[in-house]
């Protein structure tokens, strides 16, 4: 067997190394993975002439060995990112019936200029639509928005709806600017009105100088970036002003769902926290949804106990090596009851995304 801690090993891990586990009872429900990625190579071609390394903080702050590993992985795993047939075979291996397919975060290209950015988003959304057309009973598209240009993003919200997607994926910051930037207010209004579910997916942390080694740019950078974004959205009143917004946080929501009490304590004792909201920050957090890419059944139970099994969704982060290759086994290892597992495995997703 190839060492799983290599790019080649991880490509195999999604399919070949999944040993049969007779004790894993597949929940009696259509299983839905709400967190997976594809690539749109044409959009990379289109933006390449304009790219500068500091546009991409996760790569910019990565060590040379990390960059090597990632490049090799993307090369070896290319079919998983681009070929729907390969994807569906891997879904079969994981016991996933339906997968929501979103862009890989390093292809957000939010830095593209006002002329290029909308064109890139249109091209990407059309490519996503073509990919899921391959088997619309198994694959569901998640749109992308040109968030660097709010007017264009508002226009793209309508196009995403017209394409029949139930959701959009957005980054946790826009070129280092936070999601509560007043310029984005029209986007939040348009999203609320559209009833699209918003999947918040970070692309790394922009101030990652100390996260270069040990892939901390991802291991810490991803949950940190989500934590900053969602805490700001709460404290700045975005959820207060747009109560119809429905949002999914990936990687179990990052740190805040596990370590929310410090923010609540500060809300009670510090005036900085109370400029825009009157309720405890955690009350807004309770309205959100969280995926299961946390890699430990005990952490899944923590989320279920705190936020309810009806707020959890299967996520795999397929096909990245920071993904969960066996989500049903993870769920089976928890002490949750059968009804709760069915909700998490698919029932919640069916309700939330209207499948």
């Amino acid at each position: 067997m190839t060492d799983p801690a290599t790019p080649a090993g991880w490509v195999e891990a999604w399919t070949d190394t999944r040993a049969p586990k007779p004790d894993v009872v597949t929940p009696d429900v259509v299983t839905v993975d709400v967190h997976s990625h594809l690539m749109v190579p044409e959009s990379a071609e289109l933006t390449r002439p304009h790219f500068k390394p500091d546009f991409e903080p996760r790569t910019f702050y990565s060590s040379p060995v990390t960059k090597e590993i990632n490049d090799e992985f993307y090369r070896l795993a290319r079919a998983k990112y681009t070929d729907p047939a390969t994807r569906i075979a891997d879904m079969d291996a994981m016991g996933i019936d339906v997968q929501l397919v979103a862009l890989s975060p390093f292809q957000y290209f939010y830095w593209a200029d006002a002329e290029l950015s909308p064109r890139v988003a249109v091209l990407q959304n059309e490519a996503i639509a073509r990919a899921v057309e391959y088997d619309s009973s198994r694959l569901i598209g998640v749109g992308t928005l040109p968030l660097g240009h709010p007017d264009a993003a508002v226009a793209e919200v309508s196009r995403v709806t017209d394409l029949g997607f139930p959701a959009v994926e957005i980054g946790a910051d826009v070129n280092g600017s936070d999601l509560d930037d007043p310029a984005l207010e029209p986007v939040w209004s348009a999203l609320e009105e559209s009833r699209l579910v918003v999947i918040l997916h970070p692309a790394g942390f922009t101030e990652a100088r100390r996260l270069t080694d040990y892939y901390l740019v991802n291991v810490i950078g991803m949950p940190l970036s989500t934590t900053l974004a969602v805490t700001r959205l709460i404290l700045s009143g975005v959820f207060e002003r747009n109560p119809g917004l429905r949002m999914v946080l990936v990687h179990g929501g990052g740190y805040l769902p596990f370590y929310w009490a410090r923010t609540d304590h500060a809300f009670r004792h510090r005036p900085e926290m109370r400029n825009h909201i009157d309720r405890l920050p955690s009350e807004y957090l309770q309205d959100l949804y969280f995926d299961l890419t946390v890699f430990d059944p005990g952490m899944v139970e923590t989320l279920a106990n705190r936020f309810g099994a009806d707020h959890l969704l299967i996520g795999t982060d397929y096909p990245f090596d920071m993904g969960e290759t066996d989500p049903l086994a993870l769920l089976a290892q928890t002490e949750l009851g059968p009804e709760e597992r069915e909700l998490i495995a698919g029932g919640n997703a069916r309700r939330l995304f209207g499948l």
Partner: protein
Amino acid sequence: MIDIHCHRECAAAAAMVKPEADRIGRKPLQVGNELTKKVNRRQLAALRPKMESIDMRVADMDAMGVDIQALSISPYHLFHWTEGDLAVRAFQTINDDLAKVAADHPDRFVPLGAIPMQDPAPARAELRRCATELGFRGIEMATHIEGVEISSPGYDRFWEDVEQLGLVVFLHPTGFTDPTRLLDHYFINTIGHPLEETICAGRLIFDGVMERHPGLKFVFAHGGGFLPLYWGRFDHAYHAREDVRQNLPKPPSEYLDMFYFDTMVFDPRQLGYLIDRYGADHMLLGTDYPYDMGESDPLGLLYSVDGFSDADRALIAGGNAVRLLGLDA
């Protein structure tokens, strides 16, 4: 009951470094937006009596049910930006002051020393003075020294000394090094502190400090920040990637299990998870006295956690601190 996480300022050391601080423009607690700076200035002024008066402090301890404070210097008085002789004198002043408070009230205070980590040789000298001449059982440590990780190779011999002397190391952040995106909403504290602890614990693990020095007794403030509650991603990355695993023989969570954490997480569910996951013998009661981000009812919090025995609670309330600090010897 012993409080492992509480602070005291050192006015004499602050006065000593003030001319240099003014010259280079260093001010305490000045990272944040204008409202945060104002709130901090107001708080520091309001807390001055509690910082200066031992009687007031003892009365507060009695009200909280705290028998002994393991007293450390306020993190903004860890003057790691000072150099040379000034640095040595400032840290000696802090430690002499802590020693005097403890000597005057031996049944109420145990000092945790401050170390001039900015220069490894004086750091080792002051460590030895704290342990031998002053009789300290522990030290306080920042999560980085002016941006340098405490796990970097320059500190190898320092950690050897600490392990050999058997001192407890109470880790407390002093603010995130790259705060550009943490200026609003008091994020510098609410996110910056647990982030610093997460980076620091991660580096102590991945840089191999815990592998080389398994006898080190690190106690993390604020329940250890994000990592102890969100450790799965570290282990997954270790199993999935060579750039994470490198030469570390065991998965990160096995080293995480070697750390100790205070109870400063404000919620019985978060605290219950920590006790359950790391064991009642790895948790120590803390208050963050006297700040607004402190816990004024530490025993109330501890007793609101279900599912643990009185023996477990006794360990957390004081037994572990007695054992780690060697107070029974």
